């Protein structure tokens, strides 16, 4: 299935001075796409009328109780295993703090015994980022701030919709292993790819079903100290991950270089202004008073459950890249885009159906974005074959492909309809006469008894004709002509 890769607008991402190094850890919240919420049977659905997917439990009404969604736990464990985490017995805990969109005024989360811990993720470039934990928790409702200039600080009042309250989240906390903005983007992008491959979330940053917070600090390159970090929230695209981190890092560097220092705080990324702003003040210095949730029981996965989960994991992006690279004879990083788009299976099918690997990759990367799913791998392979056989030029191939996506027709029919016929025999005969005259030695080797030589020279003459006809000649016709003159 085709999915949008959100690379965001191509805007300036500042570079980091060489003498400084970034220390970045990411907290990524992924909404699990279960049918129901984490603790109640309300629908887990985006975009419903306000306060229609609510019940006593997800509204935190007095007397209500949570009951854990088994499918959410399973999704969490699958994602945990895909991130190479250890999956352990866990207990839910209450994180006590007050916010109007959080109905119980505590968030049911995991604290010292999370479901998943100690994993890692390799970026396509081969950088390993360690993952501290990936824990289950519930989402909050949604506040709309009314009045003022749209910023929370100037709002006259807020309106709350609890449809999202209680939607299951997995919070994936990386170790502070990320050293560049590009690594951060690659990490998020790879994580998103894994989530999509597992099908546990639609991971849409623009709809908030995947949210990235970045803990950013800097230090002089070569040092191993950990300096004051700021937590950047409100980052809503993968490109913004890079921009926000780079901007924040430079803010720190500027402060250090003028003899000041940043203070530890939460900051919000302002997409339009391209900078971070101070966020929630921490005057009520946070004391979450965690304790085990008495209304839920511990979760103890059995060995059989874990085995079944491992067995059920699909091929993940890293493996998909490797497989496609192998089949197409390319570098794994060259397969990234196709894998990200979820088209690796299609590419492999097209190659298996006889399509030339390199051309399959080129067309998928450049000419078929959005079109996979509108034609079969076999039809696509047929087109690629026509191209490599010289029956269509690359420009013609592109044009035919566009029409195949539109109409679903075969490459041969569309090419014929467009008049992209291979050259006539008479025309080719003339060309061949000229070639033989100009290359008598080669022709002798072709006509000789040495079968190897003959084959080699057939290739030479075919190539020359293709070159002269810009690929419009039909390879089969050329072969017939050559043999008839032998």
């Amino acid at each position, binding site marked *: 299935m085709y999915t949008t890769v959100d690379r965001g607008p191509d805007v300036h991402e500042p570079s980091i001075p060489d003498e400084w190094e970034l220390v970045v850890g990411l907290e990524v919240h992924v909404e699990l796409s*279960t*049918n*129901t919420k984490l603790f*109640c*049977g*309300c*629908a887990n659905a985006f975009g419903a*009328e*306000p*306060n*229609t*997917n*609510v*019940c*006593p439990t997800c*509204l935190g009404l007095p007397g209500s109780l949570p*009951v*854990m*969604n*088994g*499918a*959410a*736990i399973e999704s969490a464990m699958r994602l945990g295993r895909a991130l190479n985490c250890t999956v352990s017995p866990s*207990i839910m805990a209450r994180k006590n703090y*007050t*916010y*109007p969109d959080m109905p119980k005024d505590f968030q049911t989360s995991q604290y010292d015994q999370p479901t998943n811990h100690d994993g890692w993720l390799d970026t396509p470039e081969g950088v390993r980022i360690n993952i501290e934990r990936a824990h289950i928790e519930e989402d909050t409702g949604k*506040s*709309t*701030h009314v*009045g003022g200039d749209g*910023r*929370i*600080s100037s*709002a*006259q*009042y*807020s*309106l*709350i*919709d*609890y449809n999202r309250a209680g939607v299951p989240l997995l919070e994936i906390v990386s170790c502070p292993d990320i050293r560049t903005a590009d690594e951060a983007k690659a990490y998020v992008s790879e994580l998103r790819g894994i989530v999509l491959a597992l099908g546990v979330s639609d991971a849409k940053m623009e709809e908030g079903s995947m949210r990235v917070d970045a803990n950013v600090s800097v230090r002089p390159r070569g040092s191993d100290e950990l300096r004051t970090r700021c937590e950047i929230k409100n980052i809503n695209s993968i490109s913004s991950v890079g921009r926000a981190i780079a901007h924040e890092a430079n803010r720190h560097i500027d402060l250090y270089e003028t003899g000041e220092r940043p203070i530890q705080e939460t900051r*919000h990324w302002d997409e339009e202004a391209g900078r971070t*702003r*101070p*966020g*929630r*003040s921490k*005057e*009520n210095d946070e*004391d979450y*008073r965690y304790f*085990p949730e*008495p209304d*839920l*029981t*511990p*979760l*103890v996965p059995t060995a059989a459950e874990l085995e079944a989960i491992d067995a059920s994991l699909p091929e993940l992006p890293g493996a998909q890249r490797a497989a496609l690279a192998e089949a197409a004879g390319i570098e794994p990083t060259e397969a990234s885009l196709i894998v990200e788009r979820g088209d690796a299976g299609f590419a492999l099918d097209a190659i298996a159906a006889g399509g030339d690997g390199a051309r399959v990759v080129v067309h998928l990367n450049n000419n078929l974005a959005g079109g996979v799913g509108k034609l079969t791998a076999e039809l696509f392979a047929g087109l690629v074959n026509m191209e490599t056989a010289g029956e269509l030029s690359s420009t013609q191939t592109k044009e035919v492909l566009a029409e195949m996506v539109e109409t679903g027709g075969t490459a041969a029919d569309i090419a014929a309809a467009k008049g992209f016929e291979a050259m006539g025999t008479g025309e080719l005969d003339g060309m061949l006469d000229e070639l033989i005259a100009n290359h008598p030695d080669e022709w002798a080797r072709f006509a000789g008894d040495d079968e190897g030589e003959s084959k080699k020279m057939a290739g030479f003459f075919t190539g020359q004709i293709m070159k002269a006809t810009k690929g419009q000649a039909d390879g089969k016709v050329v072969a017939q002509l050559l043999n008839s003159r032998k």
Partner: protein
Amino acid sequence: MAEPDSQPALSRDEVAHVAKLALLDLTEEEIDLFTVQLGSVIETAHDMNNLDLEGVQPTHHPLGLTNVVREDVVRPSIDRAEVLSQAPDVEDDRFKVPPALGED
């Protein structure tokens, strides 16, 4: 092991800090009163130190159940009008609250 017996059970500042965490606006008199009253409860809580609890697991669930989960099947939600009828303030079918300051 921490041995809080030697310190005063609870300071006035701690009471004021805890009130803030608990979102309670206590009067000076209440803070004074609670400092004494809560202090005496905490004093008796120090009796717990007389018991050797080395290696004793905490009890969070008297019945010791595990893995209580439900099927991922949608159940009807409740009537919005009924829910909103109990709310202190409502606008556009949503719960209305004063602005959240200290945010940007």
